[in-house]
């Protein structure tokens, strides 16, 4: 099977959040970046499990600048066969998707994997966009997947539970927690990753459809009001009269 896994780079959640003086750009100074956990832990590992069982290749793709090679090498160290990077700084979801779709168009991938969302912007957009651009089914938030020849049985998370669906032929999927177990790259993997092919492609460009006007910081909490643990009537009164939530 021929599988494509889309990987993205995000700041570690514990990173300090600040912006450049123009208020339009995230200040990356001193921030450590990681591969988006949904891409690394679930999408990539599930793709590897499938090819380990059925044979085939796992290609990873990232749309981003050369500084993203570090996460690409990590994906290769975890076990991907080869990698593609479309050389573009700060692409929006539409442009990212257009570039992934342009690469995938004539490659006849059996499954295209994305993470359910990036943990910085929580867009959940790229998988659906790639699917629409390629006119393929899209199964979001997959937490289990069984592949049987041309048929896949997929469990997807929905509100309050799960839905199981069956898909024939190629499709796009977004990976949520539970799809696979995280793998840590070993020494051999890290050594091999250095010689695996990483192809850099020129981007196609798209018009901006959305622009960032600015980033603002949320209003802070004014401070916690502590309630005597023996006086829950007081808490109920405050929730009713002051907070007006019950």
């Amino acid at each position: 099977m021929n599988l494509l896994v889309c990987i993205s780079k995000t700041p570690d959640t514990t990173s300090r959040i600040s912006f450049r003086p123009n208020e339009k750009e995230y200040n990356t100074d001193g921030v450590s970046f990681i591969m988006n956990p949904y891409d690394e832990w679930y999408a990539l590992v599930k793709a590897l499990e499938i090819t380990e069982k059925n044979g085939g290749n796992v290609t990873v793709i990232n749309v981003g600048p050369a500084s993203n090679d570090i996460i690409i090498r990590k994906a290769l160290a975890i076990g991907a066969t080869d990698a593609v990077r479309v050389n573009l700084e700060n692409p929006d979801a539409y442009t990212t998707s257009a570039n992934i779709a342009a690469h995938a168009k004539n490659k006849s991938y059996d499954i295209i994997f994305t993470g359910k969302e990036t943990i910085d912007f929580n867009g959940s957009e790229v998988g659906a966009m790639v699917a629409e651009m390629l006119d393929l089914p899209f199964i979001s938030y997959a937490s289990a997947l069984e592949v049987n020849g041309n048929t896949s049985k997929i469990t997807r998370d929905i509100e309050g539970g799960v839905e199981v669906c069956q898909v024939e032929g190629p499709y796009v999927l977004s990976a949520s927690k539970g799809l696979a177990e995280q793998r840590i790259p070993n020494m051999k993997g890290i050594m091999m990753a250095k010689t695996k092919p990483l192809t850099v492609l020129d981007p196609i460009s798209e018009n901006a459809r959305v622009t960032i006007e600015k980033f603002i910081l949320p209003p802070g909490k004014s401070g916690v009001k502590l309630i005597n643990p023996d006086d829950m009537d007081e808490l109920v009164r405050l929730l009713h009269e002051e907070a007006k939530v019950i």
Partner: protein
Amino acid sequence: MAVLVYIENPKGKIKKTGYEVACYGAQVAKSLGTDCIGLLIGKTENAGAVGEYGPSKVIHINADQEVEFDSQSFTKVITDVANEHKANIIILAHSANGKALTGRLAVRMNAGNVSGANSLPDTSGGFVVNKSVYSGKAIVRYNITAENKVISVMGNTLKPQAISTAVSPETRTAPLAATNTKVIERKISEGVVPLPEAEIVVSAGRGMKGPENWGIIEDLAAALGATTACSRPVADSDWRPHHEHVGQTGIAIRPNLYIAAGISGAIQHLAGVNNSKVIVVINKDPEAPFFKAADYGVVGDLFEVVPKLTAAIKKFKH
């Protein structure tokens, strides 16, 4: 120009977020001086009630059939209706199915989109909507510059209010394009409000010591009419079902009231809950980081505090 609102109706019932997006769409239409159209697909009880929330017209497709959701065929139907009515703005809920649709709709409409918006658009100098990013540590203001726009709206962004009267829906049949997917099974906890829609959430963490102790959390939730949630280690150890897990790797919620008992308040947990309107934290450790994000705090043993709170709620409601 018009605003089209896609309204979800699982098992034939309009979701609360469906009324929310109807209100949202109607307000957008009003600020632009145009019409708002509600759209439903598949069998639905009382579809015309959507009109009470503002849309002046409701289109109901395949009203006599149960229709299974599929992002590919639904995208075609929704964009066909949008094109027919020259709707250049599509609004939908940022729900499980909404997330599978937003990106597709944006591509098919060649639109600018924002997924997970949490404010009405500011149209004073463009078309600017807010969205919470970086685990709730910042808000981005996006200006949608494209002519066509698709916005998925976070649950509880506005309170649905009936402001008008029901309309009689225009029903029609539209063939749903055959696709290669089919739903074969669905497992949903019955009778509870799904987390993303819940107005009150009672959540508990490792401080509970074990799954056998959850009765006090369920009692508190029942007294409040709340939905239960949990921290990640609790779901990971199978003390509670995975769909209750909130946080960065779980579900992001924004209820009016979030009550957390025995949860330390790690940043990854806060990422999913710190947009809640009011947060109450019950923890025996006064240094627990969660108190910094809380509005009300109770320092004490949850095994004593939670039942007392339940009793106080019952007394108040009585």
